[in-house]
């Protein structure tokens, strides 16, 4: 047998993180991290919203359903919301959603809310790295998905969750 056969290398689990960032603080901080060339784990996909108050619990559930292993919500620090109260609304919804997620066996580290100001590019880097490391330890989120057999699939059911454990 030839000695130069390459054995398949077990791929490390690469978690997928969906991040909902508010336009005014956290997304700007993400931009700043880029401009400052602060490298962070490539596992995070950022979705820009106008305000963290726009983050409906349904968005988080839909992300988890469609294959995210974790969800990060980023908003302005308390008192700094561009729309005055949006981040507080986000905080209230987040707390209730977390209670529900615990009941559903979704670990605490998978869904996070962080206040990140426009100047805190380093915090984006830190949180992205930290969360990626934590999710690697936790492994993939194992949901039990049962789609409807017919009819219009609900928006979040389509497409079905892709296979877990592949590199992003």
């Amino acid at each position, binding site marked *: 047998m030839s000695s130069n056969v390459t054995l398949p290398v077990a791929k490390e689990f690469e978690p997928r993180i969906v991040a909902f960032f508010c336009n005014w603080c956290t997304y700007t901080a993400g931009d700043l991290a880029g401009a400052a060339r602060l490298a962070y784990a490539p596992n995070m996909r950022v979705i820009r919203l106008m305000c963290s108050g726009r983050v409906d619990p*349904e968005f988080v*559930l*839909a992300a988890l359903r469609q294959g995210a292993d974790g969800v990060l919500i980023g908003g302005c620090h308390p008192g700094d919301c561009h729309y005055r109260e949006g981040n507080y609304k986000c905080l209230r919804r987040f707390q209730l*959603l977390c209670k*529900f997620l615990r*009941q559903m066996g979704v670990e605490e580290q998978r869904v996070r809310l962080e206040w990140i100001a426009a100047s805190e590019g380093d915090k984006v880097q830190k949180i992205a790295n930290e969360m990626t490391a934590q999710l690697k330890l936790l492994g993939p989120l*194992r949901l*039990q998905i049962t789609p409807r057999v017919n*009819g219009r699939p609900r928006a979040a059911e389509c497409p079905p969750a892709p296979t877990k454990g592949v590199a992003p």
Partner: protein
Amino acid sequence: MSKPKVGFYWCASCGGCEESVVDLAEAILDVTAAVDFVFFPVAMDFKRSDVEAMADGAMAACMINGAIRSSEQRAMAKLLRRKAQILIAYGACSHQGGIPGLANLFDRQSILQTVYRDTPSTVNPGDIRPEASTRIPHGEVELPVLDEQVKSLDQVVPVDYYIPGCAPPVQLLKDALAAILTGRLPPKGSVLAPDKALCEQCPRAPSKPDNLLIDQFKRPHLERIDPEKCLLAQGFLCLGPATRGGCGWACINANMPCTGCLGPVSRTRDYGGAAMSALASLVNSNDEAQIAAMLETIVDPAGTFYRYGLPASLLFARAGANADKGGHEP
């Protein structure tokens, strides 16, 4: 000309849906004048073999109530789907998974252990569990197998229409029967009920403040409830803002908050998510610890916001170790 044939079957349900047919009262005479019931195990003596003997599509319509959680129910759902031109998921369990769907917070093994071993009223020294087949002196007997999870009807067979509610309001049943008989049916996949939130035309709406905030969540069995004022404004967890209307405000008129049995309106992807969003944003505090303390009084979010629809929700069931065998049919 023979009358259209109609079937009515139950799966994992309580019998309340059959009660709603009885609630038609005198109007049931009009129904039996217009259609022939050819399968209705609760009320009439027809057997499964009678259904099997029918030609495919022989029934104009069949309504199935109850969630699907056993091999027998799955087989019956598939059989009735073949025999019926229009298959209707009748009631909250069939539509969304219903109250039996809360079993999806647990796995099958722990449910069987609770029921056959752990409850204080259980006396089962031999730890006997239901078996798919058992030998007895007279031969082999079989029992349906309990599934790993509870499903809504449309997670097992294609469903044409839904009649929501726990149990469905009589008016929705009347309207649906009229629509079937006249052929004036909406596009397939529709829920046969108004597509507006219960709150919108609530008789208590005038007492709902423009800027509604809640200082303390109250539980209806512990407080005196004002029979006129908006229940949310009083601090009760009323799910009217997230729930489809069409029930005639039955609970509201009985001075009880809405618990969400008609499920979501068509724009909603996840009923409980929408309900949590609506309710949590009313918490009158910006302080993290204070918000947490207020939410403490919502002791069971899954049972509160997904009472009638955990299987139809985006997460479907508790995540975890059993995920890989989850949802698959044997």
